[in-house]
């Protein structure tokens, strides 16, 4: 009995020490991973109904929060793309771009969370830098996305097969360029 009390006392002490070591900023990054992921799923799957989309969002967003180093963040984005694909085309830019922004923010937060353990002392500079870079990217993306949203009118006069061919070539070229940028020596 005494040994059991000692065991639980030690466990409680270890738990307390773990809680004391938690860093609020590092924890905030995890919260951001969860919030952005769940919100992205929630906004993209409004047609599924409140309860179903909430359950899906919470379930899929939980794993990247707990294990940001795993494939779960990728899975969340793929699920979100699938939900978007099945839901029919969203033409309203003001509805669409927040989803894109949330997915990118989720990706960024997960990438940052990989570098930070929950007990890592994190100065605000790290998060301010992350917010600054993400903000700049989203600002440029918003302008580009607004331009893209005008594209259907431009391409209405062109055959859809030609558009698809040009698009595929552009996508393949883009992937090649991005991969080369990531792997080049200099």
């Amino acid at each position, binding site marked *: 009995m005494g040994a059991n009390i000692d065991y639980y006392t030690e466990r409680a002490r270890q738990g307390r020490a773990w809680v004391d070591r938690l860093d609020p900023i*590092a924890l905030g990054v995890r919260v951001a991973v969860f919030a952005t992921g769940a919100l992205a799923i929630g906004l993209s799957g409004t047609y599924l109904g409140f309860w179903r989309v909430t359950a899906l969002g919470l379930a899929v967003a939980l794993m990247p929060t707990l294990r940001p*180093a795993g*494939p779960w*963040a*990728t899975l969340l*984005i*793929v699920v979100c*793309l699938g939900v*978007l*694909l099945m839901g029919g*085309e*969203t*033409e309203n830019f003001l509805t*669409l*771009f927040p*989803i*894109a*922004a949330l*997915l*990118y923010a989720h*990706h*960024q937060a997960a*990438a*940052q969370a*990989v*570098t*930070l*353990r929950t007990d*890592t*002392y994190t*100065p605000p*500079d*790290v998060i301010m*830098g*992350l917010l600054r*870079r*993400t903000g700049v*990217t*989203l600002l*440029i*993306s918003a302008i580009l*996305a607004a331009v*893209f*949203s005008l*594209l259907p009118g431009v391409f209405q006069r062109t055959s*859809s097969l030609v*558009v*698809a061919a040009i*698009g*595929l070539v*552009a*996508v393949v070229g*883009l*992937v090649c360029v*991005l991969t080369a*940028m*990531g*792997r*080049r020596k*200099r």
Partner: protein
Amino acid sequence: MTANLAMALSPATGQAPDLPKDDEDKPMWAPTRALRRAVAVAATAAGLGVLFGRLDLVVVAVPFIVGLSIALLKRPTRPPTVRLDIERAINAEGGDVDARLMVFNPEDTEYSSLVTRTAVPRWIKARHGYGTYAATVAPNTATVVQIGGSVERWGEHPIGPAHVMAYACDNLLQCRPVAAPMQQVRAYPVSEPFTADDAMPRAGGLSGAHRSRRPGEGGELAGVRHYQPGDRLRRIDWRVSLRTRELHVNHTLSDRDAEVVLLLDMGADAGESGGVKGASSVLDTTVRATASIADHYLSRGDRVSCVEYGGRIRRLRAGGGRRHYLAILDWLLGVRVWQGSGDEERLLRTGGLPSNALVVMLTPLLDDSAVAALATMARSGRFVVVVDTLPPDVRPPHDTPWSPIAERLWRLDRENVVAELREHGVPVVPWTGTGSLDQVLRDVTRMSAARGAVI
């Protein structure tokens, strides 16, 4: 925390990591899972958008494409340089330790995240700087992590190695881990207050602080005797000479120094060390008592040597003065418990124990070979004093109902050993700091004056 120390810390002064040969072909900076994810999402969303004619999916891909393009415009090629410096490498136990870890970014691109982790040993109670730290490092600048704490126990304590993980290009690229080698903090044992007022049993040198039993030019008055040819005139005791009407001179004893051999029994340890403010193990008591005794006798001008006795025999030559005291403290840092029986014949044969030296053996009396060594030294006519270093609160583990009885038997047996040693003329005294050896040194001195007496 970030400091512009580009001038202070050049890349050449940092220590590049020792890379295994297998990894030399791999690039220093490798893509992270985030980079693969971003490329995959951009390709999938854009591809699906094009295939199904869905512009909304293309819009989803846009931030990923833009983010990748901006982040990967400039990428680093060299690793960060890391340096771990100890500001006070030599200390006394209980003293403060300050170290700093400096990480320099030699590139023109910012490190979006830099995570450092410095290993801190058990006996350094770190106040800050331990665990993992994150930072961002601007191009061509350095960041510094200050590590501060106190040394809780004597010995050599390694701080580090410090591991650094650097991430650049919006955490899309990760550098191979870089490590700064560990640095040693040397903490000398604290000398407990110790004095021993009594005379040395046998002084050996030509000059020193102790009065010998030989007449000579010293300061200690031995008596008054008749004047003899050759006596110095300034030694004439005029008061006695006038009273007795015959010339008398003051008769003094010569001053001599002595050699003290501190013999450390390191064949066994007992008790758990709690650091400088906690409980002491046998090893702690032995080392601190040795430092105290050495400090005392060296300050009185005697020569002190040290011998570690146990599974191995290690010696420090006899010497005197402050420098030798520091040499003893350095030597004590290497004291370890070496399980195994000591060889008492070898101990005496190798000449580390001069016959006229006072041998102070610090032992917990847990090992038969230590008792045998004591008996051998006593039989060979050496002046031996035993300092019992077994902490009074040491209790063997009570695992079975028979444990208390076994412990009682063991204690009775130990008392018996102590009594037998006393019968052989070897006084045993527990270490209590100040005045620990006064009584026994008086006994040994008396015994040396009348050999064969039983204490």
